[in-house]
């Protein structure tokens, strides 16, 4: 049974009995959609972020670095992309993380697999995809993200671009951190609760706004309206979606609820996947932060390889799922 069925009953009851709206009216459809989706998405976010915070406490970046140091091409890239999912990482730590990897002998290409996977396969995006599209699309998203992270890391590794990293990075010597005091379970739970509060507190306005716009479109725009513009037959839809996604960085929480409605109105699934990957994976602020350790040429390669990979995934799925 769908665990959210009681929520559906509640939103139906509020919309059609309490507010007295007609189930066939546009306003009724929009209000019902909004009242169901907002609590559903917020509950999903809170529950999953809590567990993600606990899982992540077992994978500090210092440990990840140890696993990856002196790893080789291919196997190292795969491990780095997978660890990118579970290692907690905020773009403000990108510089020490990058230096730490390079300093301990993690190959450049393997480091990039990590840097691509970490933001792209992010927990908020996964939860929202799962809640709004189901597990198949979520799985597609994760597999595609891993694929892009692994291949772009391999390409950057093969190109041998070590000299495009700022020279001072190679001169920094890291100290030994020693053993950090272990976090106790109560501390882990307290931290996870705080993390839920922080993330949900930050993203809820975007979730509400995204679902609000989605709800209006759900009720008022005819189905298949977007087929002409963003359907599989428009060859430019994928690159345009990626371009639109770049400045929306880190707003996955507002964008994904909206996207579920775009699909309903006829946007092709591959285009949707490419759009979401561009939103979370191609972040300008992260590029600016990485400028401290990478020469502009290498940032361009990083962004370019990533963008090409995302666009290719978009076309591939438009073609396969059609």
């Amino acid at each position, binding site marked *: 049974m769908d665990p959210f069925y009681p929520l559906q009953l509640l939103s139906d009851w509020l919309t059609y009995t309490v507010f007295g709206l007609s189930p066939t009216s546009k306003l009724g459809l929009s209000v019902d959609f909004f009242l169901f989706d907002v609590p559903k998405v917020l509950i999903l976010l809170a529950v999953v972020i809590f567990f993600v915070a606990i899982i992540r406490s077992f994978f500090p970046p210092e440990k990840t670095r140890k696993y990856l140091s002196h790893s080789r091409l291919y196997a190292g890239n795969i491990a780095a992309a997978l660890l990118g999912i579970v290692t907690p990482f905020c773009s*403000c730590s990108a510089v020490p993380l990058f230096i730490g990897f390079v300093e301990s002998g993690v190959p450049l290409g393997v480091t990039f697999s990590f840097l691509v996977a970490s933001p792209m396969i992010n927990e908020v995006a996964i939860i929202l995809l799962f809640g709004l599209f189901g597990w198949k699309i979520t799985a597609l998203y994760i597999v595609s993200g891993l694929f892009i992270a692994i291949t772009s890391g391999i390409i950057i590794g093969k190109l041998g671009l070590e000299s495009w990293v700022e020279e001072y990075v190679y001169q920094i010597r890291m100290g030994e951190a020693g053993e950090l005091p272990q976090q106790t379970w109560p501390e882990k739970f307290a*931290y996870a609760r705080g993390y839920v509060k922080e993330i949900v507190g930050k993203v809820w306005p975007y979730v509400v706004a995204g679902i609000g716009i989605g709800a209006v479109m759900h009720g008022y725009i005819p189905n298949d309206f977007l087929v002409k513009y963003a359907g599989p037959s428009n060859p430019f839809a994928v690159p345009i979606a990626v371009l639109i996604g770049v400045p929306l960085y880190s707003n996955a929480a507002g964008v994904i609820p909206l996207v579920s409605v775009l699909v309903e109105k006829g946007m092709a699934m591959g285009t949707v996947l490419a759009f979401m990957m561009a939103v979370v994976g191609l972040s300008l602020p992260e590029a600016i932060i990485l400028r*401290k350790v990478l020469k502009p040429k290498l940032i361009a390669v990083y962004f370019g390889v990533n963008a090409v990979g995302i666009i290719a995934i978009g076309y591939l799925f438009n073609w396969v799922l059609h």
Partner: protein
Amino acid sequence: MVIKVLGSGCSNCQKLEALAEKAVAQLGIDAEIIEVKDIPEIMAYGVMSTPALVIDEQLKLAGRVPSLDEVVHILEAAK
């Protein structure tokens, strides 16, 4: 006691610094709080994820903003 907050000046680092100040006030101990923003210096502590907390040159915490209670415990243990 010398307390160092390592970080690039991001919002989480400022939060950790505020927590350290509160904890010091709560315990009524004599401590100097220093912000460390220089990357090579941060790396010298073996830290890869900020914010991080160093007490008397000993790394105590990295990569997250703890609760006030946890900071108080860390400071008490280091006294």
